[in-house]
C-alpha cells in the first residue's frame, strides 16, 4: 500500500511546488510586459531599455570576454573587474532587501503586518554606525560583530515596542509600526544634526572605522562584501527557526489561528513580542549590512525605501525564506540595472517602481493572473498574511 502512494505523493508535492511558483513567475513576466507597454507609450524602445536593464544588472557579455582576454594576455584585472561590476552591484543592492524581506515575512508568518521595517532599518543603521565610529582601537574580530549586533539590537528595540503594545493592550501593529517609522525618521533628523553629527557642517554621521567595515572581496569600485553571505545565512536561520523548531511551529500556529493556538496552550502574548523583536532585529541587520558594507556613514537619504519594498518582497516570496531570497534578488537586479537603463536608454528609474507595483498587484490579486493565463486554482491551506483589526 505504502509502496504505491510514495511516488504519487512525491508527484503531488512537485506539482504543488510548481503551482506555488507559477503565479509569482507569471506576475513578474506580466509586470515586465506591462512595463514594456508603458515604455512604448512614453516613446522609448522597450528592447533597448530591457537590454540596458540586463547589461546593467548582469553585465555585458562583450565586456566580460574583453576583460578575460586582457586578463589572460597581460594579467591586467581592471577591465575584468569592470565587467563583473554590474553583477556584484546587483547582489549588493539585494542584500538589504533579503534582510528586510525576511523581517516582514517573519511577521506575516505570525499574522503580524510589520510596516515598520523602514523605521527599524533606519534605527539599525544608526546604531551600527554609532558602534562603528564611536569605538576606536578594537580589533576587527570584535568590532565588526559588535557593530552588526548593535544594528540588530537597535532594530529589535524598535520592533519590540509595537509588539509589546499589541500583546499587552491589543493596539494594532499596523498603526503602531507606522507611527514608529515616523518617530524613527524624525529622531534620525535630530540625531544627524545633533548628537551623532560628524565633523563639518553636513548633517551626516562620522565615517565608521575600518575595523567595523564588512570586508569587501574585490578592489574598488566593486562594493561586493560579506553582507550578502550574512543575508543568505540569515535566510537559512529563519527557515530553520520557522520550520524546524517548536517555537517556529508555535509562531506559525498563532499566525494560522490564534484562538486555536491559545486553546492549545500557546502563549500568544509572548509570541507576538518575540516575533516583532526578531523581525525588528532582521530589519536592523539590513541597516547594519548597508552601513557597514556599502555606505560607511549615515545621512538623511540613507534608505531608498528598503523597508517598504520589503513588504512587496515578502508577498512575492510568499513569506518563505527561500522565496524571499529569490524575490530580493529580483528586486536587487531590477533596481541595480535601472541605473544603466536610465543612462543608456534614458528611461526614468521610476519605470522600475511601476514594474514592481504591477508585480505586487498581481501577487496580491492572483485571480487576475489565474484568469489571464487560465490557471486553475489549487486548493490548499493558504498562508495567513495578516489578520483584521483587534484580532
Amino acid at each position, binding site marked *: 500500500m505504502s509502496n504505491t502512494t510514495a511516488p504519487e505523493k512525491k508527484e503531488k508535492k512537485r506539482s504543488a511546488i510548481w503551482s506555488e511558483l507559477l503565479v509569482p513567475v507569471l506576475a513578474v513576466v506580466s509586470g515586465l510586459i506591462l512595463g514594456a507597454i508603458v515604455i512604448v507609450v512614453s516613446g522609448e524602445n522597450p528592447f533597448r531599455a530591457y537590454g540596458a536593464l540586463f547589461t546593467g544588472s548582469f553585465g555585458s557579455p562583450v565586456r566580460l570576454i574583453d576583460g578575460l582576454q586582457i586578463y589572460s594576455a597581460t594579467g591586467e584585472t581592471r577591465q575584468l573587474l569592470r565587467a563583473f561590476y554590474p553583477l556584484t552591484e546587483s547582489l549588493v543592492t539585494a542584500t538589504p532587501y533579503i534582510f528586510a524581506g525576511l523581517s516582514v515575512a517573519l511577521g506575516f508568518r505570525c499574522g503580524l503586518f510589520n510596516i515598520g521595517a523602514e523605521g527599524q532599518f533606519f534605527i539599525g543603521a544608526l546604531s551600527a554606525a554609532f558602534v562603528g565610529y564611536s569605538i576606536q582601537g578594537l580589533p576587527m574580530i570584535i568590532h565588526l560583530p559588535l557593530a552588526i549586533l548593535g544594528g540588530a539590537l537597535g532594530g529589535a528595540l524598535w520592533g519590540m515596542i509595537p509588539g509589546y503594545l499589541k500583546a499587552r493592550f491589543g493596539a494594532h501593529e499596523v498603526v503602531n509600526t507606522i507611527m514608529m517609522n515616523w518617530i524613527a525618521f524624525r529622531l534620525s533628523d535630530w540625531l544627524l544634526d545633533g548628537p551623532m553629527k560628524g565633523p563639518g557642517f*553636513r548633517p551626516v554621521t562620522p565615517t565608521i572605522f575600518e575595523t567595523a567595515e564588512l570586508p569587501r572581496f574585490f578592489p574598488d569600485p566593486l562594493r561586493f562584501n560579506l553582507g550578502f553571505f550574512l543575508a543568505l545565512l540569515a535566510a537559512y536561520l529563519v527557515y530553520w527557526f520557522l520550520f524546524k523548531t517548536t517555537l517556529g511551529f508555535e509562531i506559525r500556529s498563532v499566525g494560522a489561528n490564534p484562538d486555536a493556538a491559545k486553546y492549545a496552550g500557546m502563549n500568544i502574548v509572548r509570541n507576538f513580542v518575540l516575533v516583532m523583536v526578531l523581525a525588528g532585529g532582521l530589519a536592523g541587520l539590513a541597516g547594519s549590512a548597508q552601513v557597514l558594507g556599502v555606505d560607511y556613514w549615515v545621512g538623511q537619504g540613507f534608505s531608498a525605501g528598503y523597508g517598504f519594498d520589503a513588504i512587496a518582497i515578502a508577498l512575492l516570496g510568499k513569506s518563505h525564506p527561500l522565496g524571499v531570497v529569490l524575490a530580493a534578488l529580483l528586486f536587487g537586479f531590477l533596481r541595480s540595472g535601472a541605473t544603466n537603463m536610465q*543612462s543608456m536608454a534614458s528611461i526614468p528609474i521610476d519605470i522600475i517602481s511601476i514594474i514592481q507595483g504591477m508585480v505586487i498587484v498581481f501577487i496580491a490579486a492572483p485571480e487576475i493572473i489565474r484568469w489571464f493565463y487560465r490557471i486553475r486554482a489549487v486548493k490548499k491551506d493558504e498562508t495567513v498574511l495578516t489578520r483584521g483589526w483587534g484580532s
Partner: protein
Amino acid sequence: MKKFHFVMAVLIVASMVLTACGGGAGGGGLKVGMVTDLGGIDDKSFNATAYAGVQQAIDELGVDGKYLESTQQADYEKNIQQFVDEETDLIVTVGFLLGDATKAAAEANPESKFAIVDFAYDPTIPNVLGLVFSIDQATFLAGYAAAGSTKTGKVATWGGINIPPVADFMIGFEAGVNYYNEQNGTSVEVLGWDTAANEGAFIGNFESLDDGRSITESLVQEGADIVMPVAGPAGLGGAAYCAESGSCMVIGVDTDWTISASEYTDVILTSVLKNMNVAVFEAIKSVQDGTFAGGLYIGTLANDGVGLAAVKGASDELNAGLDAVKQGIIDGTIAVR
C-alpha cells in the same frame, strides 16, 4: 476567449517589434553626465536648475548631455561610476552630500573631469571644479527689497538645518534689512535669524512641507508679513500657507518661484536666484574650449552667478535703491558681511 488572449499577445509583441526600429543615440559631441542629489531631476529647485545648464549646453554647444537620478546615498558612488565607465568628458555632481563620492571618484580616475555644485574642496583637487555661490550678495538685495515692501515692519526668514550654506542666505538677508534701515531711517525687524547669535528658526529637514507651513504660520502670527524660507522643497509649505491665509508673501530661493512654483505667483514677492545653470554651463564650456581647470568657480552678482528676480509691486524708488545697492556690492562699496 482563448483566441482573444492569443491575439492580444501577438499585438503586444508586434507593437514591441515595430517600435524597436526607432530610437538611436544622439550625436558624437562632448559627453556630459549629471548626477542628481536625492531630490531628483524635477525637484523644481536645485537639481532642475543645475540641469538647465546642461540643457543649455546641449542646445547651444551641441554637447551630448544626460543625467542619472540618485534615490539613496549609496547611489552617488554608483551613478558616478556609471559615467566614468561610459568615459564621460565632464561629470557634474549636484549638492554637498556628493562631496565624498565625487572626491573618491576624482582621485581614482585622475583622467576624468568633474564639477560639483555647492561644494568646495580644501585643498582643491586638480580635476574637480567646485561651483560655489556668494548667495549672501543676492539675499542682501532680498532683505533690502523685503524691508522696502513690508507693511507690518517685520520680515522673517527660516531655514531647513542650521548649516553654513543655509545660514549664508539668512546672514545676507538680515544685513540687507539693516542696510535699508540705515539708509531710510526705518526700523524693520528680522524674525527667525540672528547673525550675532548664529541662530534662528529651523525645521530640521528639507522635505517636510507641513513643518514649513507651521513655522511660517507662527512667524506670521508674530507679525511678519514677508517670509523667506531657505529649505528647498519644504519652503513651498510656507508659500502654501501664505496663499491660503492671504496674510503674507514669500521670497523664493534658488530658482524663480514664479516659474517653478507658479501656482503661488500671487504671494511671491521676489526670488533669490542661485544661477547654478550659469555655473554648470560655464564649466561645460570650459571643457569644450579646453580651458577646464580644477579649483573654484564663485558665482556673484558681477558674473550673474547669483541675482534677484523682479520685485512684485516695487515702487520706482525701491527699484532705484536696489539697483544702487547691487552696483555698490559689485564695485565693493557696500560690504555684505
